[in-house]
């Protein structure tokens, strides 16, 4: 009797994995196209419109980059913790705390010049985000508390802290009771790059991505991190500092999400309000997995996912496709690429059972 079974590949697939990736993407797009056709919309035209309105013009590219910034920062952070097999799903809460930290600075020292205020806001956001990341790390090491649960719960706490402040002490007296802080002074707003809609937060992304790549590839700690992620017991018996690494990755991850919170409040909204929370922390998890946890690929994946979301808006506007189509398509893409990952690690072959 012949049966199909999966055999682990001995050699890495190399360029073949690119092929698998393209095949997965094609599959996801075909399903999405079919869905469009079922809804009575032009399938090919719709997909072309989606791609064109996401990447087809200078405006569109700017929009995608702006939207990709917070996703990239959060995803780089969670990707780092996933490397160590620490499942930090708390980027959302760390993002909230980062925004709170930056806002505290902006509201407390409005008279400072921008060259003092902006770095201070960044530092304060990093600190607040890092603190929110350190709590689950310490709880895990000292009490053995599962970091998945703790980070998830801290998301709710973090958002409530933000809301408490915005509905309470930080509420702008001139806002007719709406929950928002007063607008930041100009010195507290991260500026735009030239005439574009891009802001200098993009530079922070370059710094974060570059440092992360170098750290993972060329430093001893980075090597130890990758080793611990592959096999904790082996790494421990090689006397690698597992506990220190857990705290480090959680602190760095929290700080990066904090940066995202700082940029969203300062560069995008120019104040703090509850609607700053739009799920980037959760999107980041998806992106990190899509990118197989590699920093440079995370950059590309954030940009593409941002493009999908930006393009969906035009698809809605021009073809009146429901918004949920975007979520479904996102799901298709994720599912196809993750299952594609299976084929780059295993190959199928027929085996005769006797």
């Amino acid at each position: 009797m012949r049966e199909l079974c999966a055999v682990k590949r001995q050699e890495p697939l190399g360029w073949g994995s690119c092929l698998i990736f393209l095949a997965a993407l094609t599959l996801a797009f075909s399903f999405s196209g079919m869905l469009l056709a079922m809804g009575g919309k032009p399938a090919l035209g719709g997909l072309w419109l989606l791609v064109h309105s996401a990447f087809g013009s200078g405006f569109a590219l700017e929009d995608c980059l702006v939207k990709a910034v917070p996703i990239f920062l959060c995803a780089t952070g969670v990707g780092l913790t996933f490397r160590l097999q620490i499942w930090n799903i708390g980027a959302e809460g760390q993002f909230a705390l980062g925004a709170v930290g930056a806002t505290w600075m902006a509201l407390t020292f409005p008279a400072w010049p921008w060259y003092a205020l902006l770095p201070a806001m960044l530092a304060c956001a990093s600190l607040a985000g890092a603190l929110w990341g350190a709590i689950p790390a310490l709880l895990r090491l000292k009490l053995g508390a599962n970091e998945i649960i703790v980070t998830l719960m801290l998301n709710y706490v973090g958002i409530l802290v933000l809301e408490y402040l915005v509905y309470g002490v930080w509420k702008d007296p001139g806002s007719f009771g709406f929950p928002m802080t007063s607008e930041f002074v100009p010195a507290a707003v991260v500026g735009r790059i030239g005439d574009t809609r891009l802001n200098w937060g993009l530079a922070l992304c370059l710094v974060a991505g570059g440092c992360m790549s170098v750290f993972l590839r060329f430093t001893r700690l980075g090597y130890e991190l990758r080793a611990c992620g592959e096999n904790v017991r082996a790494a421990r018996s090689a006397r690698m500092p597992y506990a220190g690494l857990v705290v480090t990755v959680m602190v760095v991850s929290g700080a990066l999400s904090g940066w995202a919170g700082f940029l969203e409040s300062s560069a995008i909204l120019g104040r703090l309000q509850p609607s700053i929370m739009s799920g980037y922390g959760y999107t980041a998890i998806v992106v990190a997995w899509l990118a197989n946890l590699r920093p440079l690929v995370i950059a590309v994946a954030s940009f593409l996912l941002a493009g999908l979301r930006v393009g969906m808006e035009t698809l809605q506007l021009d073809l009146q496709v429901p918004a949920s189509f975007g979520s479904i398509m996102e799901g298709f893409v994720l599912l196809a690429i993750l299952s594609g990952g299976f084929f780059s690690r295993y190959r199928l072959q027929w085996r005769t059972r006797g």
Partner: protein
Amino acid sequence: MRKSILLVFIALLALGSTCFAEDLKVGFVYVSPVGDAGYSYAHDQGRLAVEAMDGVTTSFVESVAEGQDSERVILNMARKGYDVIFATSYGYMDPMLKVAKDFPKVTFMHCSGYKNAPNMANYFGRIYQARYLTGMVAGAMTKSKTLGYVAALPIPEVIRGINAFALGAQAVNPDVQVRVVWTKTWYDPATEKEAAKSLLDVGCDVIAQHQDSPGPQEAAQERGAYSIGYNTDMSSFAPKSHLTSAVWNWGPFYKEMVQQIKDGTWKSQFYWYGLDKGIVDIAPFGPMVPGDVQKKVLAKKLEIASGAYKVFSGPIRDQAGKEKVAAGAVMSDADLLGFNWFVQGVVGTLE
């Protein structure tokens, strides 16, 4: 000869393009999906009324998050040549203002906020008038004299609605209490249903709500209590418990605005219409509402619509019993827009 034919042809073309001017493009931005039978659904019904006008085409983007996303969506509409843009959630205010500055020829209409520009107006409806009427119904139907209110977020719009509801109930049943639970959501069926259950647990026998989901209606029906809907007629979700709903009717207003823009008579101002223009109303009564209650409520509706009765006229006391509005005085629109205290008889905090 040939040249003159060409000239005539060009002249005809020019004439044609002025006679058959391009349709006015009108875009709508919604905070939730239009299929939610709630707030965005009500706005979209208004859009459909505009779509039916001559020389107008419309489109919309739904489920747009407030903040970064909304600015991009509004900007995208302006770039794509939309002539009028309606943004229907308060969090779209600052993003819209930013875009409005860069597109002086586009008309921007923001719902439920307070900032404006020469080409950006604000509008909203006095839904509190309808809420007062639904409060009268609830006050007449309650036996436990405790009404439950599943509230969305502690912002003036919601607080105003709760207060109007309480005043309406007290007008027919002076000892009535209104218990408030905040869900901090606009659309979350499970959370909102649970909140309604918690109110039913403490003895409320009529449930009112501010969110888009029918969750609270279902909770009331399951426990054999009564319910008051919001946004649209919610009777189909809970036919046994649904007394009436405070409903939006945006069609006439949107048509009026678009017509004014076409005619060039539009002005940037704050439009705040109510029962007088039919922007807000109450849904048909459920069969359990007695005839005399219906009659009383409809009489009050006429009084409010004609301007003879103002919902927030004194004396009005706050929760502590302190007189906030003296007898004979009426709260100003500015006070209503910044409402941040509860009237006497409301049980709950503003957090």
